């Protein structure tokens, strides 16, 4: 009888909970249901890196690599997400852009490195780190890609990866790469901005540099196509500047805590 009651109670509780493994994300301050765990996300990123570097090689300027690494380390140290190892590198591309692969692989183009001072760069690196901490890429993948394809990319280099699936894996790598190259939603961009400014402030950078960085891009530092490229992947400049003008004093007052 006791067993029956316990069994019934378990079923009632389970039905009421309709259990989804939601986890609290300190970066977004929300409970979220993410299918993809951190190690899987990191493995996906690692397997997409060669695809990126094939299309856009690394810069051979060690001075730029060291600069982004130094800023990146300071930002990563204050990030809400500590369960992955961030990596920061500079691509030779002169285009004004930055991008993030799943699992904390962050890339900044040489063109942007040269156009931005350290505080502005800290905002850009903080913004990309914000996408990672808020799990925007993982959410984008699980919302748009078949889960088997996502797992296929994660396990692509596993010892027991099915060779017959090589074509599917290549398709998955392409799908992730194309997803990274697409813009984030308006909500995700605003969220990454706020998180990015918060991290820049906590890491000791000047947070208002976020405004000058966006203004520089908006007013056309460099040629127009370069700017257009940035706003294709990071749109809504005017609205983001307006939102940051409101949030920066608030974050400063709170000490970014």
């Amino acid at each position, binding site marked *: 009888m006791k067993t029956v009651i316990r069994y019934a109670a378990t079923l009632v509780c389970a039905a009421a909970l309709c259990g*989804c493994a939601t986890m609290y994300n300190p970066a977004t301050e929300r409970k979220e249901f993410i299918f993809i765990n951190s190690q899987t996300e990191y493995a996906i990123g690692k397997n997409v890196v060669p695809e990126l570097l094939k299309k856009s090689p690394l810069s051979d300027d060690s001075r730029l690599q060291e600069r982004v690494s130094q800023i990146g380390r300071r930002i990563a140290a204050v990030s809400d997400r500590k369960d992955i190892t961030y990596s920061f590198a500079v691509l030779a591309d002169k285009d004004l852009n930055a991008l993030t692969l799943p699992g904390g692989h962050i890339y900044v183009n040489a063109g942007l490195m040269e156009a931005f001072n350290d505080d502005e760069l800290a905002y850009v690196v903080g913004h990309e780190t914000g996408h990672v901490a808020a799990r925007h890429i993982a959410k984008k993948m699980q919302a748009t890609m078949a889960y088997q394809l996502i797992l296929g990319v994660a396990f692509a280099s596993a010892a027991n990866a099915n060779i017959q699936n090589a074509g599917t894996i290549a398709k998955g790598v392409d799908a992730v790469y194309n997803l990274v190259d697409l813009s984030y939603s308006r909500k995700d961009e605003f969220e990454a901005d706020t998180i990015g400014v918060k991290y820049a402030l906590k890491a000791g950078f000047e947070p208002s540099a976020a405004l000058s960085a966006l203004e520089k891009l908006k007013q056309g530092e460099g040629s127009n196509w370069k700017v257009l490229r940035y706003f294709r992947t990071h749109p809504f400049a005017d609205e983001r500047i307006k939102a940051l003008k409101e949030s920066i004093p608030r974050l400063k007052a709170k000490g970014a805590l």
Partner: protein
Amino acid sequence: MKIKRYLITVLCSALCVTQAWAGSLVSIAGTGIPLIEGAQPAGREAVQAHARIATYAVSRPVTEVADFYLQYFKENGFVVLGGKENGALDVAVSKDAVMFSLKVFSEGGTTLVQFIW
């Protein structure tokens, strides 16, 4: 008599995966994955985004369920990404063409076992 009991204990300890498995399976892409003994479906199998989700409830501690599956994956040559974190299990596993995620966690005092594929 004492020897018989001892042998049974040894056998049960060595085969603790089998011990906690009552023979039920969850079918993932045509492959049967064992359900820990006592696990009962918690609602219907659902489709969220582009994944299928099957959730089971069980009256066993999270650690016991997590260890059961980790041992099963190890003994059966699965590649595992992830592990135990904050008192829960969150892994993605792969063997040949079978790939899925498994989350074992506690909610409202009940242990939930969730397969995502």
